């Protein structure tokens, strides 16, 4: 229904474009006046004025309609003698009524429910009809208003610019508000978690075994029970595992990515570059789960075989395998971005260096790389955040056991993997186990934020600016 309405509104207002354009042309000829803007701006003006108020009205209406209908229906049901003790039961009855209306309810239907369902469809009808009428009225009113403006030869150019500016503003507002919304939802759930688990026990605990907190009523936890839980939510093994795997990945990706970026930008012939750059970028297009296969089924066992042949115990799920594959996965980010950055260093700087007798590699090392450094660090940072956020490869190749270890041959786990583990399957949302996922998310978010901030400061300090 709503989609049809939106479609009709858009079609109608788009067609007004041509009307506005020709109308203003004829006005300018009839009255022999100079228009304040090109005729097409009057067209845009009409389009915007006829569509935006109606669409906004539709949006607001759709937001409030269900709420209002619900409260009316629940009230009428109560008046008819339906009994419910709290909000949840009221909701249940409302859902039943809705299901009866849709014909998808298969339980017993008593008279109260039946009556309510009838009044529900009645109200639904009234609301839909009045919605259509009101939208119609809105469109007519706004078209009359804008036509009047156009006939008075208004400053359509300025008005259109203003409306467009407003639209862009609203878009960025939506982006910001959504981000804030996500942060706050993380924050509130985390606060619930930290009201049960002491934040210091969480931050400095060295043991992570959240399954121990399964099925436990968080609101009524006793001191004895808490003592038992105290060391179930230790964050240290997770951050250690995350940083460890990310470190292995960067150890692989930074040198290879950077060097291949330098080769592409400075040494490769244009033909070579044209062929090999897309090939490297294909690496970035491989789904991470495929990398996961590869790490778990090929690389992991391969390392174990090698380890066994030289007498080492290697777990088949190891930090080394996951980190290595993750490193290969992020090579294209570093190489492709640093290639672009190096390319954008002006040729005049290289010329200046050659002219005093520097060789190509001296020039690259001492002039080009320092000038491109902010961009290179940017690309490395992007790669680090990819490495920290990567989940699939770790799930498949590094294991789930939260070992606190620096042995790359043992299995380990990361923050993101644990979040997945905690939220997979049936959960009750008031258990500290489930809430700990949000705390982990928040910590990850804060850690990434701090990392970004430090890196930006570093870039600012060491950047060599060229114009």
């Amino acid at each position, binding site marked *: 229904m709503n989609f049809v309405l939106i479609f009709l509104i858009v079609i109608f207002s788009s067609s007004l474009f041509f009307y506005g354009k020709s109308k203003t042309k004829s006005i300018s000829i009839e009255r022999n006046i100079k228009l304040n803007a090109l005729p097409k701006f009057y067209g845009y003006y009409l389009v915007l004025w006829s569509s935006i108020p109606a669409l906004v009205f539709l949006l607001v209406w759709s937001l409030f309609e269900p709420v209002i209908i619900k409260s009316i229906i629940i009230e009428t049901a109560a008046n008819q003698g339906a009994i419910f003790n709290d909000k949840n039961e009221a909701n249940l009855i409302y859902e039943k009524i809705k299901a009866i209306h849709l014909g998808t309810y298969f339980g017993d239907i008593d008279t109260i429910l039946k009556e309510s369902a009838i009044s529900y469809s009645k109200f639904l009808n009234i609301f839909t009809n009045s919605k259509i009428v009101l939208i119609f009225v809105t469109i007519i009113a706004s078209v009359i208003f804008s036509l009047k403006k156009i006939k008075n030869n208004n400053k359509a150019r300025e008005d259109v610019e203003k409306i467009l500016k407003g639209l862009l503003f609203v878009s960025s507002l939506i982006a910001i508000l959504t981000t804030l919304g996500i942060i706050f939802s993380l924050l509130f759930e985390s606060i619930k978690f930290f009201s049960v688990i002491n934040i210091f026990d969480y931050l400095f605990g060295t043991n992570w075994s959240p399954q121990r907190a399964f099925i436990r009523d968080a609101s009524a936890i006793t001191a004895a029970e808490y003592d038992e839980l105290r060391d179930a939510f230790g964050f240290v093994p997770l951050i250690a595992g995350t940083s460890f795997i990310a470190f292995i990945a960067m150890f692989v990706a930074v040198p290879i990515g950077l060097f291949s970026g330098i080769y592409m930008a400075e040494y490769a012939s244009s033909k070579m570059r044209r062929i090999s750059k897309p090939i490297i970028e294909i690496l970035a297009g491989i789904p991470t789960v495929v990398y996961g296969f590869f790490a778990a089924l090929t690389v992991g066992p391969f390392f174990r075989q090698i380890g066994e042949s030289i007498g080492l115990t290697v777990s088949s799920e190891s930090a080394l395998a996951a980190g290595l594959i993750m490193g290969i996965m992020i090579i294209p980010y570093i190489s492709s971005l640093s290639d672009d950055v190096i390319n954008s260093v002006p040729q*005049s*700087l290289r*010329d200046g260096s050659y002219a*005093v*007798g*520097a060789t190509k590699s001296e020039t690259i090392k001492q002039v080009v790389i*320092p000038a491109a450094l902010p961009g290179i660090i940017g690309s490395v940072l992007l790669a680090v955040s990819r490495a920290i956020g990567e989940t699939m490869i770790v799930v498949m190749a590094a294991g789930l056991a939260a070992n606190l270890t620096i042995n790359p041959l043992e299995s380990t786990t990361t923050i993101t993997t644990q979040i997945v583990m905690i939220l997979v399957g049936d959960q009750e949302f008031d258990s500290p186990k489930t809430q700990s996922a949000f705390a982990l998310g928040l910590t990850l978010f804060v850690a990434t934020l701090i990392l970004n901030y430090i890196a930006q400061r570093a870039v600012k300090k060491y950047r060599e600016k*060229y114009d």
Partner: protein
Amino acid sequence: MSEVKIKSNNLNVFYGDKQALFDVNLDLNEKEVTALIGPSGCGKSTFIRCINRMNDVIDICKVTGNIEIDGVEINDENLDVVSLRERVGMVFQKPNPFPKSIYDNISYGPKIHGKGETKSELDEIVERSLKKAALWEEVKDRLDEPGTGLSGGQQQRLCIARAISVNPEVILMDEPCSALDPIATAKIEELIDELKKTYTIVIVTHSMAQAVRVSQKTGFFHLGKLIEVGKTEKIFKNPDNKMTQDYITGRFG
């Protein structure tokens, strides 16, 4: 009459299929300023870029013929371009200081060539180069500030100081004042006058007035050919070639 420092013999340059220089024979005298004039795209810059083999940087560029410095052929595959460029410095059209400190801009060349092993030796080279480029007084208190923060004219003098720092014999200048205002230009010209006591200088310029002011010898290029060369006075007062006459009087170009 001073001695010939650089001698080009039937020099041809090609960019891909396009020939940019045709059989250029030009002698440049030691400790003298030679100005190269001519309309845009006539091959002046291409010519001076042959003297320090900067054309090597361009893949599609091919150079045939001979260029000798002090009687030694430099257009030779086996020649070490690093030591050639140590002897032949270059200043570009647009000031191109490195995005490093003023000090590092000057010490860059000497470090590469292994000159100035101790800090005090390097300090001395930096000071001497900046003094020669008449920039020392303006920057001596802020040597650790970025070279890109200087004004355009100062940046160009910094680039001259950078070229001087490795103690070259020849300095090539490719329209060094085209991006500068008249006051900065006057300073650079003054500097060129001073520098010619020590160095052989080749300057490409679009300004006839500048050629007259700074050079002793002038060569006129047109469409990749050297049309006429001679003492600056003669070229500007009484040129042999009709085309030169037309160009310097502003009838074309």
